[in-house]
């Protein structure tokens, strides 16, 4: 994609690191998170040259870029080529959000018939060009860091940008939402109220939002580091969750993330089996 603006062909060189923000198939919410850093935005802008950020600026600077934030998943041939260019122009490439890290909700097409979806939405499907799948960025190019969430958490985004500015590894926990519930002093919604909750298999980062509002976690941060979705699934079935609801619960915002994808093959109560050691440590 050429994104030169004749109004602003050159921008004075700078010793500050350059930041680019890229969008693929997505809702814009994760890049909006950057603009939602009201208290920090101008400070961040003082530390970085925002060299390419189409949603925020009509000026753009040609690459290469020190840090690229990539939002969205790959769903078209054009985007499959464009992500290669973005990678080539980026010293560090960080994917942000469930679309970029797991294919997003639009990855629900991966287990369905896309031509059927096309017929449902569009009267003349032949005008539309799309791939059969929605895939994460890491399926196409090497990724230096993945920040999870649907949407990402603002504090975690600042942590990641800050860490790359000073050259250290971002401190984002890989443990489950359960840990955050304990930190907040939340009673367990699953144990205390029988509310179906994906917290035990889901990566922390949101601050245990849903249980804090008395609802079960719906897994928008994707699988935790060592999740055991089969064991959790069995527990939820035992608690009375119908199998089709369990399937939909795992199969939404991070449906194509490997451990959740596997969890979709829900064991019916009669075919339930214990989780294997291999699954435990995946």
């Amino acid at each position, binding site marked *: *994609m*050429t*994104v030169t*603006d*004749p*109004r602003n062909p050159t921008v004075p060189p700078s010793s500050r690191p350059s930041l680019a923000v890229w*969008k693929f*198939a*997505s*809702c*814009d*919410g994760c890049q*909006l*998170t950057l*603009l*939602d850093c*009201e*208290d920090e*935005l*101008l400070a961040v802008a003082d530390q970085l040259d*925002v060299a390419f*950020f*189409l*949603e*925020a*600026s*009509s*000026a*753009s600077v040609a690459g290469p870029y020190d840090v690229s934030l990539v939002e969205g998943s790959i*769903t*078209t041939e054009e985007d499959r080529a464009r992500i290669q260019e973005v990678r080539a122009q980026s010293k560090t490439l960080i994917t942000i959000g469930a679309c970029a890290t797991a294919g997003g*909700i*639009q990855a*629900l*097409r991966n287990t*369905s018939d*896309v031509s059927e*979806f*096309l017929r*449902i*939405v*569009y*009267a*003349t499907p032949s*005008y*539309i060009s*799309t791939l059969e799948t929605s895939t994460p960025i890491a399926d196409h190019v090497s990724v230096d860091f993945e920040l999870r969430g*649907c*949407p990402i958490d603002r504090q975690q985004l600042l942590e990641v940008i800050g860490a790359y500015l000073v050259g250290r590894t971002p401190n984002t926990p890989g443990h489950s939402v359960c840990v955050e519930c304990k930190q907040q002093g939340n009673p367990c919604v699953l144990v205390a109220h029988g509310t179906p909750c994906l917290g035990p298999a889901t990566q922390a980062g949101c601050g245990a*939002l*849903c249980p*804090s*509002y*008395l*609802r079960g976690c*719906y897994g928008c941060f994707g699988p935790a580091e060592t999740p055991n979705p089969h064991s959790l699934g069995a527990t939820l079935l035992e608690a009375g969750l119908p199998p089709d*609801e369990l399937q*939909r619960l795992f199969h*939404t*915002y991070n449906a194509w993330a490997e451990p959740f994808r596997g969890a979709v093959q829900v064991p019916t109560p009669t075919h339930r089996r214990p989780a294997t050691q291999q699954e435990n440590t995946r």
Partner: protein
Amino acid sequence: MTHRAGGSRRLSTGALARVEGEGAMHIDIRDGELVDVQLNIYEPPRFFEGFLRGRGLEEPVDITARICGICPVAYQMSACAAIEDALGITVDGPLRALRHLLYCGEWIESHTLHIHMLHAPDFLGVDSVIEMAQDHRPEVERGLEIKKIGNEVLSLLGGRAIHPINVRVGGFYRVPTVAELQPLRERLLRGRDLAEEAVDWVAGFSFADLDIDHEFVAAQHPTDYPFLAERIESDGGVDIAVADFPDHFEEHQVPHSTALHARHLGHAEASTDDADDATDAAAVRFEPGNYLVGPLARYSLFSERLSAGARAAADRAGLGPTCRNPFQSIVVRAVEVLHAYETAIKLVDGYERPDLAAVPYDVRPGTGHGVTEAPRGLLYHRYQIDENGLLSDAVIVPPTSQNQATIEHDLWHFVEANLDLDDESLRRQAEVTIRNHDPCISCATHFLDLTVSRT
């Protein structure tokens, strides 16, 4: 019409900036005559209406929020309205008030983003809010604070600003206590004052002349400025129940867009009203029946219902009872932000905690329609629910797809009247013509790639 001999030029810009999502614009000028304009949306389709089929009736509230990170609450509100319509339940009293309050937060956040970060740079001749901060730092900081307080409303009631987690069919998962809501009051008062200053600030910008003659359509409520709605109204004589939307408005597909275009059927057959100020070429290019939703429509239909402070600020800004210049939409948005603040204060003051966080319901099959006013305009949802509580059909009509043909119309009129501008100015102004309507291409779908060709 053009001052250039022959008038054959070809211009092109890579991608339109400062809109939500991505798309292209093409302007075709041959021998000094405008031949075509296209707002070309090629955002990769994400098929929400497809994969909603077979999902549970509680799910569209969270799933459709993912259509747009900038106005997720709008999707949650219209989804709830449609599903509750199908289930035959009514959400009123404090639960409705809380929804209204949540929606105020989103209007504040979304409009302020557009006013300060996307649109104001056009009026100040800069490329971005970051560049704007060099010469207008106090105004930028004020804008950020106005936006931040809107996000605080969203976070308190919704859990987080983007894709809130606390909204459900029938109400909420958890409702705040009066004491929990109270600290918001002081913040809202502060935001109110800042929002008032912001109206006066944007009113001082200079605006190009453009007087549009589109039909204005907005959701209607018996007493409130439109947020949560009961009917649909237009200045073209429409006054219909929400469920009659599909009988009066139709979405159709055009080759150059992954977003469907909408048109007003009643007017699609007959109306030649706007032929007066349209050229023959425009009459050929555009099918009749285009209409506009959003701030200009809401304001022009219901400005008398604005809160007192917002009304006074609108007067000070020189807005009449209606506004038909899209370049002034930034002022109307600023007035609506002030209205949202004053409404929010009233809602906080009048809040009593309901006994139940959500109205209970029994699953039953049926079809439901829901309309609410997203920041960008009327947002329609329809769901068909089967006997097991699963969706057998879903239809979503976002504001930007309704406005798409109208934005092209505006472009046509603006470009035609300004063919004597040099390429660079024409391109820049044409971009602004699009940004005036704050198109949300993520909603409609994505990619704005700007091309002006003169051959």
